[in-house]
């Protein structure tokens, strides 16, 4: 007969801004029920043991469900409803609903999981289901759904029509959500996904607040996911964050950075902190410099109007590349908890030396592509793209040299670059090590001997490469660089989760590790503002043109200096 041999003790932090009282819970069913009423639970101890044979001794693993007691049985989040604002839009069709369907197919979603689409378009539940069936058939990375799979998935899909600032329509949404809670057991758990243009974020949040939907309902939780761009500059980012915080607690807010959800990006943390060999050399003593590159072969793809208000720094460097820099440069976190990792990331971001306005030209280069050849085809220059001003000075390429003022990285430059219409699509982090302190081998010009290099490839081939020197076979000593390669696709022949799958699931679990915190957004903007302001004031003065299909402007090479050079990817 089984019995409790140790008391179960739970610390419940109730939801809501003003809640501070903790509760002690003393039995499993009580603890399970209390979970529903808590925003966060810290289970201090929860152990069941069998008194008879000793054979059934086990812990109540995985949030008190003992049937989850093994790694190979995947955990699913609590039942919830995802409300997609902008449900008739491209992102919902191409990414969000296919990602949710893939999760359902992989048994990662809970029973009763529901989707509510919201937009201004007139549509019925069935219209939305038909629209999404086509979308999933076209865009799901795991293939089209079978009739039975779709019937089951679509049974939890509903639609609400209304304006984005229409309080009455939100009241109807609220009633619909309450009905879903009862019928499908979603317990008041909601994610609001703002898949809308930035201009609608404010009105949607205000109306969510006014209708009471922003508050976590009794026994449930409410979270909001916001897509980039998160502001246009530091001022607007601060305004947006202030706006958000008037309506939501920071721990309700999930700012998407889909770059963070890529397998290799997550692997940076695993590689650095699960392998003892890297940490001793991961510092200024052994590392010469770091290059972070995100190159695209495509141009603005018909989104010239949007890109005119953005540019390479706002689109890529301020968010994605800075996140990568933080993961490479941060100190070991004390745990894998979301805030522990994000605390370390923000520390290193804050240690980045701000670039003074009069030093921008020495630390940053901007470029814009002209007509050229990419992939065997002639392509137009940026200024000839649809929606782009003929006199545009928007940068389609940016390279920045940052220095980090801390003990680990003092004197080690971090070079970030991103551009459109470059030679090929490639994203990677390259950590170049210093040469050995003494040149023992006399190399000739025939020797292709370069310093050790660790490359973390993000796309298109996710993996790791370590460059070493080796002796060429023969009597004479000639060195040659050779690569040790690890490829995700080859070594693990399994499909990696799509970024949106991972992010949506993490949000359902309340795990914000891969999402951007408010302070990181604002720190990123603060670092970029002197550069953006200097360029805005310079007109065409320091805008370097580069031919489409090349690796960017020549001026970017001069940025490196000290015998360093950008990697040819």
């Amino acid at each position, binding site marked *: 007969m*089984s019995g409790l041999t140790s008391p179960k003790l739970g610390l419940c932090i109730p939801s809501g801004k003003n809640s501070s009282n903790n509760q002690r819970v003393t039995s499993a069913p009580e603890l399970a029920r209390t979970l529903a009423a808590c925003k966060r639970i810290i289970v201090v101890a929860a152990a069941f043991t069998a008194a008879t044979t000793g054979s059934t001794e*086990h812990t109540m693993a995985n949030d008190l469900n003992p*049937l989850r007691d093994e790694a190979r*049985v995947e955990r699913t989040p609590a039942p919830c409803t995802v409300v997609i604002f902008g449900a008739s839009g491209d992102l919902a069709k191409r990414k969000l609903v296919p990602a949710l369907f893939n999760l359902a197919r992989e*048994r990662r979603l*809970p029973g009763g999981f529901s989707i509510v689409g919201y937009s201004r378009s007139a549509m019925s539940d069935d219209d939305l289901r038909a629209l999404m069936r086509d979308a999933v058939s076209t865009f799901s990375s795991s293939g089209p759904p079978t009739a039975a799979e779709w*019937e089951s998935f679509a049974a939890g899909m509903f639609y609400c029509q209304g304006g984005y600032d229409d309080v009455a329509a939100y009241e109807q949404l609220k009633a619909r959500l309450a009905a879903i809670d*009862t019928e499908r057991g979603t317990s008041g758990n909601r994610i609001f996904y703002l898949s809308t243009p930035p201009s609608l974020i404010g009105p949607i949040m205000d109306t969510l607040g006014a209708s009471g939907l922003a508050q976590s309902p009794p026994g449930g939780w409410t979270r909001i996911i916001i897509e980039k761009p998160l502001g246009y500059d530091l001022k607007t980012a601060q305004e947006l964050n202030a706006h958000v915080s008037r309506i939501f607690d920071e721990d309700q807010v999930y700012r998407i950075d889909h770059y963070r959800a890529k397998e290799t990006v997550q692997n940076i943390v695993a590689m650095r902190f699960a392998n003892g060999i890297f940490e001793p050399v991961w510092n200024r003593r052994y590392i010469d410099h770091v290059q972070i590159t995100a190159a695209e072969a495509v141009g603005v793809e018909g989104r010239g109007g949007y890109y005119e208000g953005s540019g390479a720094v706002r689109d890529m460097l301020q968010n994605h590349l800075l996140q990568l820099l933080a993961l490479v440069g941060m100190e070991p976190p004390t745990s894998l908890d979301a805030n522990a990792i994000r605390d370390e990331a923000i520390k290193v971001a804050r240690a980045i030396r701000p670039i003074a306005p009069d030093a921008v030209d020495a630390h940053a280069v901007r470029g814009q592509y002209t007509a050229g050849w990419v992939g065997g085809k002639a392509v137009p220059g940026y200024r000839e793209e649809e929606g782009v001003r003929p006199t545009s000075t928007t940068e389609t390429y940016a390279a920045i040299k940052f220095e980090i003022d801390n003990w680990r990285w003092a004197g080690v430059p971090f070079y970030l670059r991103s551009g459109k219409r470059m030679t090929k699509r490639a994203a990677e982090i390259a950590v170049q090590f210093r040469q050995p302190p003494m040149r023992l081998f006399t190399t000739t010009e025939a020797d292709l001997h370069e310093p050790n290099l660790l490359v973390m490839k993000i796309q298109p081939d996710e993996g790791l490469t370590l460059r070493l020197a080796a002796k060429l076979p023969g009597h004479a000593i000639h060195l040659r660089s050779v690569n040790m390669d690890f490829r995700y696709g080859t070594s693990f*022949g399994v499909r990696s989760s799509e970024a949106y799958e991972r992010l949506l699931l993490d949000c359902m679990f309340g795990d914000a590790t891969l999402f951007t915190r408010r302070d990181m957004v604002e720190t990123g903007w603060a670092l970029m503002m002197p550069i953006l302001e200097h360029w805005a004031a310079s007109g065409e003065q320091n805008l370097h043109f580069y031919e489409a299909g090349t690796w960017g402007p020549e001026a970017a090479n001069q940025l490196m200096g000290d015998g360093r050079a950008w990697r040819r990817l």
Partner: protein
Amino acid sequence: MSIVEDIERRRQVDVTAIERELTELWKAAAAAKDGDTGDAVTRVCLLNLLVFITDEARFGEVSEVVAKVTESAPCRAIIMYGNLTEPRPETQAWIASHCHLDDRMRQVCCEEIRVAASGTAVQYLARTVAPLIAPDLPVFLWWQDLKTLREKYFHDFLHEVDRIIIDSRGLTHRDAIAAQLARFVLESRHRAAFSDLNWTRLTRWRDLAAGLFDAPDLTHYLQELTRVTITYAKDDEASGVPMQALLLAGFFAAQLGWTLKDAHEINPHQAELRFRARRRRVVLTIEPRAGTQLPQKQLVEVVLEADRAEPASFSVTCRPSDGTDWLYTTAVKITEGAHYHTTIGLPPLTDARLMSREVEIFGRSKPYERALRMALEIINELEIDAQLD
């Protein structure tokens, strides 16, 4: 991805020169590909997979499984055949490669070594094979002959491997070997961990059943269950309750802290088990169902019911679909509350799929050992019940 092909015909080699022959094989493969397309083959190895068979006719079947496994888990495969009827001591070896195209259309290749031993050479299989194991990589041994687990030549492998994979699929509670196997696994004191493909077949069922109780306001029902029914596809020929159903019953009982009070056969295919849980009794029935179009002994349905303050029913059902997948439906019915179901299609559990999953896991599985221990208790109780009758 996953176009499997042999880049070179299987060829017989000298047992003592296998490594050298493999090197030649890869050189030849690389040269051939360089000449044809300019793309070199990539030789990848993440683990060693050893397979032991006692039926020569199974070489081809196992080779196909290995080829599929290499798509997700590139490995050095060593397939060993022990010919126990041929008295003449002899060892022969062959090598071949399995290649597939990865998602970037590159040739990813793994090697397969076949070793056939007869007579006293079978006794030294472990010594023959040990030098062929790729160093510093995990070693999995898939031992396909449950009757030889007590043999010395099996025990010799226990020092060489990290994980031993067996399959109790064909067994029922009436097979004497079922209890012997359970005791053997539970009493093993070797470094190597045991794993049962029949347990891996249950992963989906455990996963889906667990998912029914993940919602915080449903988890408490696990402490209120009073009736469980496990239904399996009926086997017309064999009698006895299949091991797979017994393992699932053992899993529920062990994980939920139930104590077995008694067990009896209702008929040769059906059993009723009575457990004591905290302040209540749980009746668990294992019963057959005919005409399911699912493989014999495969689970068809699991229903977990609570009939106390707030009656509720939770179920997982499997049925074939028009396509190639099996459809799994999970359903929750709370008398005074939620009522919903979810259906997903999942591919049938082939040996290749199971093995691919199996080689991802290292170390011992505590839930498996707990479930097996409880299954053994059930088997013993059913045996006593049968003797009393």
